[in-house]
Structures are given as C-alpha cells and as structure tokens.
C-alpha cells in the first residue's frame, strides 16, 4: 500500500472518530439542553403558580375590603379611613376613586404634597376600559398593568374591585385599588440558582406588559420579539397565536436585544384573564456540559498526536527496514563474495594437495619427487588450516561469541613460540630480522594468551609475508607501567621494509577479506581475514592498534595493550657478585636494552658493536688480567660473524672463556659449526631477563656444557600414552607420529573405555592421556571429570591433555574447567605435541 493511502486512511479514521465524538457530544448537549429547557419550563410554571398564589392572596384582601365597604354604605372618607386602619404592610396602599372622575382618596399622602390624600387616575390610562375588573367580588383576580403610582411615583400594580360609596347620601360607583409596588412582587420571583439569570414578565393577550422584566424591551412583548428576531408575518402571527391560546406551558428560542439566543418559556397565567407568564434567560447560562468540547479537543489532539507519532515511528521503522534491507543485501553480496572467495581459497590449496598426492602416487618410487611433493602438500595443508581457523575466528568475532579466556602465561614462552612460528619464513626469505624486548620486568601475565599470540603472530607474519626477500623486519616488545591497576602496558611494534599499503586500502584494511590489489600481493597466500581478526581482538582486549605505511617503503604496526600481571612471578633474579660480561652486536637498540637488562641482573657489562671490537676488547681485558667471565656474541654481524668471533677469542685469547651465541634466527643450521668454534650455548633473541639469568647461571655452573641437541628425542623413549580417540584415522595418525619419536601408545575408543582403563590402571603405566572431546558413549569432558573423581591418586591425578577439533578458546576453557591440564587442537602439530609431552614429563619429575 502506498504511503499516501496509509495517511489518507489514517486521516479518514481520525476524522470519523472526531466526527463521531462531535456528533455524539452534540446529541448529548442537545439532550442536556432539552432537559434544561424542560426544567426551565417547569420552573416557569412553578413561578407562575407562586405568583398566582401571591396575587390571589392580595386580591382576597382587596375583596374583603370591598365587601365590607359595600356592606357598610361608607363615604369615601370612611372607606379610606377603614382601609387605612386595616393596613399592615408599610409598602402597600389603597386608592378609592370614583368611576366617573377617576379621582378620589389615597390611604397614604402624596409624596410631593404632604397632607394631600387626593389621587387622580385620569391620566394614568388604566381605566379607559374597565372590563378587566370583574363585577363579582371574589370571583377573579383583577390586577392592573404595572403603572406609576401617582402618590409616590413607584412602579406598582393594583388589585381592583368595584365598590359603591355613599356620596352626599347617594350611592356612587367607585373603584377600590389595593396598590403594591412591583418590586415586592419581583422579590417573590426567586428562581432556582441554575436559572438565576432568568427574567420574568407578565403580558396580556395583546402582548402588552402587565409587569415588564428588565431585559424585555419595547412596550409590547410581540413588538419586542419582532424587533430582534427575523420572522415572516405568518410565523409571527403563528407565534402570537401559540402563546396566547395555549392552555399549557411551552418554550421557544428567541433573540433578546443583545442578539443573544434566549430560551423563552410561557405559561397561561391563571390569575389574570388571558394573561401569559413569561420567563426568559440567555441560552449561554444553561448548565450545559461544555466539557464535551474539551473531550473533542482532547480526542482530536490525541488522535493527531497518535497519528504523528505513528507516522514518525512508521517512517523510523521504514528507514530502519530500508537500512536493514540494504545491510542484508550487502551481507548477501558479502556472503556470495565470501563463498566465492572461500571456494577459490579452499580449492587452491586443495588442488595442490590432491594434485600433488596423485603425482606422488604415480611416482611413488621417485623418493626425491615424493619428498618434494609432500613438502608442498604440507605447505598447502598449513595454509588451508590457517584459512579455516581464520574463518572460524572471524565468524565468532562477528557473531559476538568470541570470549576471552584469560590464564597465567609466560611472556618469554609466548615470544619463543612467536619466534618459532615465524622463523621458517624468515629463514626462507633471508630476512634481516630483529626482535628486541625492553624493560620486561613482569614475565608472567594474565591474559588470553592464545588470542594475544594470534594478534602478535598475525602482525608479524604479515610483516614477514609482505617483505621482499632480503628485506628487514624488526619487532620491539616494550613493557611499561600501565594506568590500569595491576597491569603492565605491552607495546608491540612490528616494522618492515615491505611493499607497504596505499591510503585507500588502509581505510578498509580491518574489514574482512580485504587484500590489497597488487600483483605482488596476489602471489602471496592470504585469507584477507588476519587484520580483521586482529583488530577485533585488540578491541576486545580494550587495546589500540595503529598503522603507518607507505607503499614501497614499508609498514609499522603498533599494538598497545594493558595486560594484568599474574600473581606468579619469578623470584628475585640478581647475581650475588659482579660478573664481567661482554656483549657484541651490531644492533644498537639491542645493545641498549641488553645492557639495561644485564645491569639489572648485577652484571658488569661491556659492549662491542662488531666482532673485531669484541676481539679487541677481549684482548685488552686479557692483557689486563681481567678476562670477561662470559662473552655473548651475535651470530650475524657485518665484519666477522659470531661463530668466527668465538673461534678467534678462544684461539687467540683464551680458550676457556665461556661464549654464548645469540641470534634471532633458527640456529639449527649453524649448530655444529658453533659447537666446533667453542660456543657454550645459544641464546635466542630477544634477550629476556630470566633467559639471561638462567643461561649465565648454567654456564658459570658447567663451563663445558655443550649445546643441547634440540633434535635429540632420546628423552621421549619409553614414554607410554593413553590416547582416547574414536576416529580410526586420527588414532592411526597420532599413534604413528608418536611411534616415530619412540613413544608408545594405547587406544581407548571413547571416554567410557578410557575411564574403565583408568579404573584398573597400574601406577605409572601412562605418562599422560590425550583425550578427544566429541566421542560416542562418553565424551572427553565427562570422562575427565569421572577420572578426576577416581580413588586411585595416580589415576585421578594423571595429566590429561585435550586433543580435539574444538579449537576455540572457550573450548580450551571448558577442557581446563573439566580438569584437563592442556589443550592441543587438531589437526595436530607434532612439535606442539612433543613440547606438551616434555612439559608434562618435566612437571612429573618435580
């Protein structure tokens, strides 16, 4: 439905409702008015009866007087005297006038001529026609029109009777008038309060006022009506007829002299022959429920307000829907793009895996080719795994389900891990790599180490990935005081001399699947999700991530995080007595940070910026008889490298000086030559305080200790592990891999089997248990909980490491909460597996 129609329908509904309220109110008002009018009419009738009773009473007094005068053959003086004596009311008077002359005597003296009781009605005009006076006394009420009392000037009415007086012994017709001020009658006219504005009049059949209320104008009511009301002659005559002939009360509307609409009620006046009692009141004084207008106003206002509100809400929701629709459209397009991208990104390594597998099967006898293919398959598989992990991570991030699972971790171990992961590519691309730490006092921190690792790895791997072979990548990890309580501020800066980014790309680089369009980039494998995940995780950790980049010059990422310090910290590390140490490196920054670190350990540090300088300084100290107690030499230096330097120190100066080789690279390739040169050990960059402390202690304790054989797996021989795995292939893979390192394993097909085995296990039969999570009958979590409850202390305390495809951090947390001791995600990295086995073995020794 079009918007305009909705508006029209709304307006029509509102108009209908308002119209209904209006009509209903009007009907109610009219009913109320009609009720009021009926009430008013009844009041008029009541008032007429009150008036009639009053007038009848007064007339009866006049009748009594008249009867008495007639019966006593009185002269005018005698009659006047009699009435004067009978007067009770101070405002009342009586006039006795002869019919022929209309003059006579008053019971009260003239107000302007004191002592004069003569009265004349000759010009008053009351008695031109005397037919309104009934000859039979007591038969009717004979009231005059209101007139001006000639004795006192007051507007008065007179109750009359014919009497016969004695005049010089002869009877003479006269009229007896009992005169009362009109004001006295009006005083009786007290309407009910709601009609207090009503005014009364009495008119005769001609419309002439007998008594005229204030608001009644003209000398004739009908004249008054015609003056202020538009009427045709016919309806005017009809009105006169209705009023003058009606035997019952009636009401009609008319305008008064102010052109106000008035109610006029009329009722025949029983006391006067053919007189009509009138009552008039402006309609505005009717007690009509005017709140109805308020009701209409409120309803109208309410409806309009509701309409406007609905309109605004409707528009708002329409806008929201529009935005949602657009977002849905964008999301849909993104999904399509995502699926397309995923299809491409998954098919590419899958193509390599399947293709190379087929090639290998065909050339199974060509060992070199098979080895080469397997290496490529491994690379493709790793990429595929990264892609899947990233997709799952971004999915969780975007759905808001990514939760941090903090745990205590070693910063040193984390950096070592970081180094290990990045080393292969650094090595492969022959990148000049540096990793420096500065002011790291607290090595144990409390954070979600997996996510922290992920942040650092993503940034570092991007730097390595997008730096051309022979380029330079440097990492700085700085620990500072944080403003957050119990936290340190870790600043992680990765700078490279890679391809850099354009400002346009940087504007959207944190969006998923964004990869710079560049011929060089296209040749690099990537999901386009790494930075998006990194940014989300930094935000989740309430940190900041900044980037400065210039195409062709390189990029610098800086991540700042406030991370809580773990309760567990290393004991105070300081040598009891000063030890003279020479450190040689061409990296000025590393030298500065190393000097700081070593000074804090209580070492006397001397520095050399090259191998030659190291030799020179060693010679000088040797000649002074103060040989350095340890010499630490960087592997890669511009003039002579670290191995050569050690070799020459030992050969030319002192063959017993302990020498440590430091490197940011994997030193497995140079291990043998270093050993041959007399190196006492290796130190991986960056140089952590604890690493230095432990290594120097170790060197000074066993001077001749040779470099550990990193690839020596003899320590793993004889270890037996219980692997709980329901999937046959997975079981085959893990058991085969373990077997390759001399580790034996037994299988439990599910949690139940594992539990049963542990119930009957002999002590020290297994070093640990690798536990799958999702299994039939009993899952890994339940099995772990059950094992932890076993009575046998060995069984209940056996290390259990999760080995599962549930790789999210909350899955890790779930495993640890169930009582497990570690977590390895599938697909398994055998290096991590071995590291975990060694860790367990070391802990079991303790």
């Amino acid at each position, binding site marked *: 439905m079009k918007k305009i129609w909705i508006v029209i329908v709304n307006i029509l509904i509102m108009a209908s409702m308002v119209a209904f309220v209006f009509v209903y109110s009007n009907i109610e008002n009219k009913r109320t008015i009609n009720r009021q009018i009926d009430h008013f009419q009844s009041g008029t009738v009541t008032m007429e009866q009150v008036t009639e009773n009053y007038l009848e009473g007064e007339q009866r007094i006049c009748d009594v007087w008249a009867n008495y005068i007639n019966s006593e053959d009185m002269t005018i003086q005698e009659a006047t005297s009699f009435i004067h004596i009978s007067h009770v009311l101070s405002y009342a008077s009586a006039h006795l006038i002869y019919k022929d002359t209309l003059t006579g005597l008053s019971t009260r003296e*003239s*107000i*302007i001529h004191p002592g004069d009781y003569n009265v004349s*009605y000759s*010009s*008053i*005009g*009351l008695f031109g026609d005397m037919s309104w006076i009934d000859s039979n006394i007591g038969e009717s009420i004979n009231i005059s029109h*209101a*007139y*001006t*009392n*000639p*004795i*006192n*000037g*007051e*507007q008065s009415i007179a109750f009359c009777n014919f009497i016969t007086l004695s005049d010089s012994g002869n009877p003479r017709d006269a009229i007896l008038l009992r005169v009362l*001020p009109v*004001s006295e009658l009006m005083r009786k006219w007290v309407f009910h309060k709601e009609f207090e504005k009503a005014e009364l009049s009495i008119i005769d059949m001609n419309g002439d006022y007998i008594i005229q209320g*204030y608001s009644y*104008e*003209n*000398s004739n009511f009908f*004249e008054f009506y015609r*003056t202020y009301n538009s009427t045709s002659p016919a309806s005017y005559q009809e009105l006169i007829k209705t009023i003058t002939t009606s035997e019952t009360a009636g009401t009609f509307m008319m305008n008064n*002299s*102010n052109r106000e609409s008035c109610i006029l009620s009329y009722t025949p006046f029983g006391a006067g022959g053919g007189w009509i009692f009138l009552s008039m009141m402006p309609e505005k004084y009717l007690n009509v429920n005017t709140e109805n207008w308020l009701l209409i106003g409120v309803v109208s206002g309410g409806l309009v307000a509701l309409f406007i509100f609905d309109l605004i809400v409707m528009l708002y929701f329409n806008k929201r829907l529009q935005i949602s629709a657009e977002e849905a459209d964008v999301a849909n397009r993104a999904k399509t793009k995502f699926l397309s991208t995923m299809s491409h990104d998954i098919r590419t390594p899958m193509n390599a895996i399947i293709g190379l597998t087929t090639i290998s099967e065909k050339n199974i006898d060509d060992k070199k080719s098979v080895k080469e293919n397997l290496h490529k398959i491994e690379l493709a598989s790793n990429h595929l795994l990264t892609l899947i992990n990233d997709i799952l991570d971004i999915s969780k991030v975007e759905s808001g389900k990514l939760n941090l699972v903090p745990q205590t971790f070693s910063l040193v171990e984390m950096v070592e891990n970081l180094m290990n992961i990045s080393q292969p590519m650094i090595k492969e691309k022959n990148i000049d790599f540096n990793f420096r730490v500065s002011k790291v006092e607290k090595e144990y921190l409390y954070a979600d180490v997996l996510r922290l690792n992920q942040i650092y790895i993503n940034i570092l791997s991007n730097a390595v990935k997008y730096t051309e072979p022979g380029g330079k990548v440097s990492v700085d990890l700085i620990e500072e005081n944080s403003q957050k309580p119990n936290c340190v501020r870790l600043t992680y800066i990765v700078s490279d001399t890679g391809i850099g980014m354009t400002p346009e790309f940087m504007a959207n680089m944190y969006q998923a699947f964004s990869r710079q369009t560049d011929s060089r980039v296209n040749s690099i494998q990537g999901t386009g999700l790494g930075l998006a995940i990194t940014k989300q995780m930094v935000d989740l950790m309430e940190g900041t991530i900044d980037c400065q980049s210039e195409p062709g010059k390189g990029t610098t990422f800086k991540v700042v995080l406030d991370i809580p310090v773990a309760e567990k910290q290393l004991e105070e590390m300081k040598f009891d007595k000063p030890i003279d140490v020479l450190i040689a490196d061409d990296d000025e920054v590393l030298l500065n940070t190393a000097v700081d670190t070593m000074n804090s350990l209580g070492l006397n540090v001397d520095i050399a910026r090259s191998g030659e300088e190291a030799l020179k300084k060693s010679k000088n100290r040797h000649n002074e008889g103060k040989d350095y107690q340890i010499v630490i030499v960087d592997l890669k230096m511009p003039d002579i490298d670290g191995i050569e330097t050690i070799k020459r120190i030992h050969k030319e100066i002192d063959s017993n000086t302990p020498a440590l080789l430091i490197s940011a690279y994997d030193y497995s390739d140079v291990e043998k030559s270093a050993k041959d040169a007399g190196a006492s050990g290796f130190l991986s960059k960056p140089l952590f305080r604890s690493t230095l402390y432990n290594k120097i202690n170790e060197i000074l304790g066993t001077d001749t200790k040779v470099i550990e054989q990193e690839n020596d797996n003899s320590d793993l021989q004889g270890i037996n592990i219980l692997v709980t795995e329901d999937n046959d292939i997975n079981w085959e893979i893990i058991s085969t891999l373990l077997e390759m390192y001399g580790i034996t394993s037994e299988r439990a097909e599910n949690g139940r089997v594992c539990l049963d085995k542990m119930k009957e296990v002999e002590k020290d039969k297994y070093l640990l248990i690798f536990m799958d999570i999702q299994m039939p009958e009993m899952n890994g979590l339940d099995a772990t909980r059950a094992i932890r409850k076993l009575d046998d202390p060995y069984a209940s305390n056996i290390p259990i490491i999760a080995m599962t495809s549930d790789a999210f951090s909350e899955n890790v947390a779930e495993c640890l909460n169930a009582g497990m001791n570690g977590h390895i995600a599938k697909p398994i990295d055998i290096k991590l597996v071995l590291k975990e086995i060694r860790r367990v073995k070391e802990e079991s020794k303790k």
Partner: protein
Amino acid sequence: MKKIMCTLMTVFSVALLASCNKGGGGSSDEFAPSMDADTHCSIRIVGDYDNFPELMNRFKEFNAYYPNVQLNYQKISGNYKEMIATVLEGNDKPNIFFSSTWMLEDEAYASIVNHMEDLSDSSLKINLSCIRQGLIKSVNNLMVPLFGRSYGMLVNNDLFEKEGLEVPTTWNELLSVCSAFREKGYTSPLMGYSKKEDNCGLMTTIAYPAAIASIANSPDAIELANKPDSRAGEYMRAAFNAVDQLKKNNCFNLTECDSIDDNYNLVIMRFFEGDVPMMVCADDTPSGTRKREERSQAFIDHPFSYSYNPIPLTDKGGYFIDTPSKLLSVNKYCENLDMTNEFMRFLVTNKALNAMAYEKNLLSSTKEISFESIYAPFGDVTPEYTYSPEGLGITGTVKAQIRKLAFKVATGAMTVDEAVAAYGE
C-alpha cells in the same frame, strides 16, 4: 516634469487626507472610563417614550466598560408632566429623567428643576461643547438634548416623479405644485395633523418657522413675542399669512386632514398610503418612518422614496428651525450619582449622540451634524435661513401663541388680521 508634478500632487493629497482624518475623526472626545470597572450599581432612566432602544443600545456599550452596572429605561405612566415630580420624590428615585425646556420657564416645575444637576460643573467633565450651541444655550446646562429636530414635510418623491412634477423649493412652486396635484385629483396635496391644536400639527409646523424668521433678527421683537405682547402680533403676520394662503389655495383640505387621529403614528401610516404628496409634520415624527415602513401593508406593497424637506415658505426656500429634542437631566438626589455622571460622560460624546441620532432616524444634536438619509434636503438650507429659537432666547410662549392662532386661521375661526391682533391675549 509632468510626472514629478503628479507625484507631488499625489503626496500632497494623501497628506491632506491624513490631516483631515486626524482633525475630523471625532476620536478626540472618545470616552475614557474613570471609575472602577467592577462597580456594582443600577441606573434608572425614566421618560415618556414607550421604549427607547437607541438609548438601550448605549447601555450595552456602556456595559462594555462597566459590566456590573444595570441600566434600565422605564416609561412613566400617565401624564409625564404631572407624574415626574412625584417620581423624582418617590422611593425609587430615577437617576436620569426626560426634561423639557418649558420646565425652566414655569414655576410649577421648580421642584423638578431643583432636581436637575448642573452638567456644566467642570468637575463632572461632561463634554457639553460637542453639542450645538443653539441647542444647549437656553437650558442653563441643566439638560442635554439628545437630538435636534426641525419643522418640515415628508415628501413622496416617487409620487412627484409619477405625476411629472418637481418637488417645490420656493413658495410659488409650492402653490403651483399644490394646484397641479389638485388638478390631478389630489384633494389635499398638503396634509398633516389638524384635529387639535398641537405643537407639531399642520398649522404650527407651517406658521412657526415663519414666525421665528420674522423675529429672529430683532431682540425687541423677541422680547415682545416672549412676553407675549400684542405688539409682537404684527411680526407674526407672515406666519399667519402662510397658513391662510395655503388654505385659500386649497393646498390642504382640513376634512381630509382631520381623518388623521393622532399626530405621530397615524400621520406616518397615512403618508405611507402613498397618495399624499406632502405630509407636514415636525418633532420626531420623521424618525418614526423607518420603523413603520414594515408595518404599513400599503408601503410594503408599494414602497416609494421619500424625504423630509423644509416647507418652502419663501422665494428662496424654507427654514431650518434647529430645535432640541428629547432632553435628559440628571437627578442630583439619586443614588449612584457618580456612576450616573460617568454614564452622562459616556453619552455626551459625538460618537454616542450621533449613533443615537442615526439609529433613531433623527438629526443629531452635536456640532458634527450630518444630513443623512431623509434629512438630506435640510443640508441645502443656507445659514441665513437657519434659526435656533432656544439659542435666540425665544421661549415656548411664542410657540403656544402661534399654535393657537394659526390653528384658528386655518380653521377659519380667525382672519389673519384678527390673529395678528389676538397675539398676546
């Protein structure tokens, strides 16, 4: 150049009009209330009018300033002259009452005059200056004339047109027109109330303006006329001659005129019959025409245009006898005298008095008189033919003499000479 001149002329004209508006707007005497608007009281006005809607309209206007003041007009029953003294002394004393100039001239009405407040008292701030001097001069500032009136005749203009005759503007034309009408079958081209001697009857209305004109320029004559002294009779000859000449020329037929039983309502109703070319009448009779148009079936059936013209008693036209009509006095012994005077301050303004005159269809008593409606012909009377008897000091005695003698001349009871001789008797 022409364009510049036109522009300058336009600007000048506009400025002139604006200044005219400022000067003649009449807003200078605008009423300004001076009492508490919440005052509760009542003011009662009595008179001899059956009703007085024009005054009541002023009540409503006054109530806009003082909503709680109840104003009421009441007719006094009986003979007003006889009753007003009693009413003024009564328990319900009126605040304002109708008064007449003759009350000042007759000792019998001294008690009434005694009740009259001096409206010229500066403390009252009643703007008497808005009233024409000739109307106010003679009443010693004890009365305020609500209207002005004159002596003239209602003219049926359509009838003149129908008969192909011109409305007369000179004495000879009057005689000729009457003759022409008579020849066309109109037995009484001039009509008027003639049944009794009346201040405003046919004869008085014809004779009085001529009499005033005769003595107006002679203070001695006025003094003699006022006395009345028989020596003033000769001054009145012209007045009696006018009546006599009209009679002799059969301009009016008394039998016809005597069919009119009263000198107000029936005069108008007879005129509205449509067959009377000229109806002589005075006082406020013309004011009653408008209201009665709709009461006359003959007029409703055959409406016609009419006007109130001066009777052309001279070769140069007729007279405008500027006379006060319907005077009000304040009863200085009434209750609520302050509010009563406040009402008088409201009433005695150009605005209120002109509005009343317009509504009543009478001439205004103010200096800003405008000859509108049926009074337009009086606007043509030159100042030399305009007289204000009261302003000249001519008393009611003169009119009484003229009324009596002119009636006799008209009815044939006296000749002109006898009437002249009888003046002052």
